[in-house]
């Protein structure tokens, strides 16, 4: 349940500023690391700024969403939501320059299939990378398997993600049962789904509980459709007396909506410019992953056995002395 989950304890933050702070820190940490390492060609201009990283992040996130939507067999929505959440959490503490988002995005999808028990074999998974050849798919798979543990580590091993989809279903059931004022809640479903898909592309998952996001989605769709649902909160949720909680709820919903409005798709020319920079950073300073592969025992210094002492053999010379 959400109220005892690691998501609530560790991955729900207070406000957007703290998230920005974390991302800036990650960026800065990477820069300092590279500057301290003293490699040639290192200068501040080469690196991406935090806002540039943000643009690229949104671009790759959209690509992840498209990849998941085009996935065969059809990925359940919770798997998609989990994958995007992993992506977001990973780049909260790491810089895009250190780990290329193209790889990480595939690993997020792969891991979330595993965690959410959506059974896809690895070959089937890389088969969905339609634009690559078979060799390219192989390489992608190798990269995925190599970085998977890194992803899990950076997620601090907190793999269970609570998405707003099930709370949304629960709220619809509740509305149908206890709130007869709203005649046909099913009509809201399409716009609610749409809202939830758009909300996963914002930071709301890291700031608000999923049930609040679902509530916002439903109330928003209702008001868009011109239906009034104010009394739902006061009557059914028992918040008539509890003004404070009610105010907080409205506040949360307002913030979620403003986050949604602020989101915009990244502009293509900006994206391309920053992508070039990113590729250069990775080409120059990225560690080649193949080097890290473990070698077999041949290269390790293993202790050689001591040679046996040669015994003195009986030779013909001895015979001569007889």
């Amino acid at each position, binding site marked *: 349940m959400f*109220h005892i989950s690691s998501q609530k304890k560790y991955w729900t933050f207070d406000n957007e500023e703290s998230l920005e702070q974390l991302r800036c820190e990650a960026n800065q940490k990477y820069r300092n690391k590279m500057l301290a390492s003293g490699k040639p060609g290192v200068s501040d201009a080469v690196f991406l700024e935090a806002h540039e990283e943000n643009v690229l992040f949104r671009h790759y996130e959209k690509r992840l969403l498209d990849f998941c939507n085009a996935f065969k067999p059809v990925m359940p929505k919770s798997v998609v939501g989990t994958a995007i959440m992993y992506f977001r959490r990973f780049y909260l503490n790491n810089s895009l320059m250190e780990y290329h988002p193209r790889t990480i995005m595939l690993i997020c999808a792969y891991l979330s299939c595993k965690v959410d028990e959506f059974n896809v074999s690895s070959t089937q998974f890389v088969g969905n990378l339609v634009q690559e050849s078979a060799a390219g798919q192989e390489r992608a798979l190798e990269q995925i398997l190599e970085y998977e543990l890194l992803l899990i580590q950076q997620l601090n091993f907190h793999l269970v993600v609570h998405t707003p989809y*099930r*709370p949304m279903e629960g*709220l619809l059931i509740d509305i149908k049962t206890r709130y007869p004022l709203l005649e046909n809640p099913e009509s809201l479903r399409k716009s609610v789904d749409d809202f939830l898909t758009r909300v996963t592309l914002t930071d709301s998952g890291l700031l608000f509980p999923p*049930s609040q996001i679902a509530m916002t989605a439903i109330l928003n769709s209702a008001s868009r459709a011109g239906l009034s649902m104010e009394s739902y909160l006061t009557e059914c949720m028992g918040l008539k007396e509890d003004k404070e909680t009610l105010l907080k709820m409205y506040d949360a919903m307002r913030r979620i909506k403003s986050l949604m409005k602020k989101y915009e798709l990244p502009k293509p020319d900006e994206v391309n410019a920053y992508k070039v920079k990113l590729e250069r950073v990775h080409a120059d300073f990225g560690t080649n992953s193949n080097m890290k592969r473990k070698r077999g025992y041949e290269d390790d210094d293993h202790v050689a056995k001591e040679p046996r002492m040669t015994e003195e053999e*009986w030779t013909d010379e001895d015979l001569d002395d007889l």
Partner: protein
Amino acid sequence: MCFLLCGNCSKMGHWGLSESHPIGYDGLYQGGATTIQRRVFGLHLSLRHDVQYFRGLPVQGECVWDFVMGAEKTIHLACIMAYSFLIAPTELCDNGLPLLAKEIHFRCESCVDMLFVRGSGNCVQCDTPLRKSNFRVQLFEDPAVDKEVEIRKKVLKIYNKRDFDFSNLREYNDYLERVEEIVYNLTNNLEVEGTKQIMEAYQRENRDIIQKNKAKLTREQEELEELLLLEQQGNEQRRLETLQEEQRQLQAKRKSKQALLDELERSHVPATILLAQHKDRAAQLETQIEKQKQVVKTTIFSTGIPMGQTVSLLTVNRLEEVLYHYQPIHMHTYGPPVPELEQLGRLGYLNHVRTAQPQDMAGGYNSGLACHRAIQDAFSGLFHPLG
């Protein structure tokens, strides 16, 4: 056959044969189980293969240094003294051997018999008085380990306090550390005299405690032995019983077959009826056997104490502890209260959930479960306080 020479002699070309010739350390051959051949008096002697070595000294296996002096008698000379690790090769005692604090003496069995035919004698090489009873079969491959095990047994006979003899854990650990020190010192021949004195002093002071603990140990051992004995007896009995059962069954079968054959011969009743009768009888016999097996022998009381065992009447210590009070768990969900699973149907929630198919219900699923989970997720964290 070969004759071990010390390095000095072989270097200087002395091939003299002498039983009491001391064997120097560096003259011994290292490892290997191959043939070493040396010339002695024009005879080629070779070492046998099946000897195990310890630091170049034959330790186990057959005593191979059969030494023929051109005469009738064979003397085993290869029971060589194995040196403990702390050898200072430059120090030599008067008969030419390195001076050691304590040596381990290895002998093969036949040599032990021969050398100590009178009951006690001296080590061939270094004249230390040894007794035959002190020779034990080597249990561990590494002789140092064997030595340590023996020393430990002796020490622990004296230092036999247990953990409840001490008032706190720290004291018990200190005591154990002292014991380990003593064992270490004795094994590696450090301060042997001082250690022995310490042991004697301890023995004198704590004589009564040692005795008491010895008594306790023996009692525990007795109990263990009793249990083992009972187990063994039980096993034996069961085995015998099963054997007897089998025998009886075989006999019964044979008898009934024989009876059938006889009847087929003699009687005028048609064969099919006879066969049917025979089958009935066989089935009856089997059920009888089954019933017999279920007769349980009463050998134990209902509390589990076997009949006929002596029960110790020592008092058991009473432990006073705080009693446990049940308190129901309270979970803070940060949201409105969720209706109970059983109430969902009555409250009408289940009308809006997909009904469970018969296949699902057979597996134990019902629609209330999915509904309850959805409602729980919807209400959990709804009133979560924000920053």
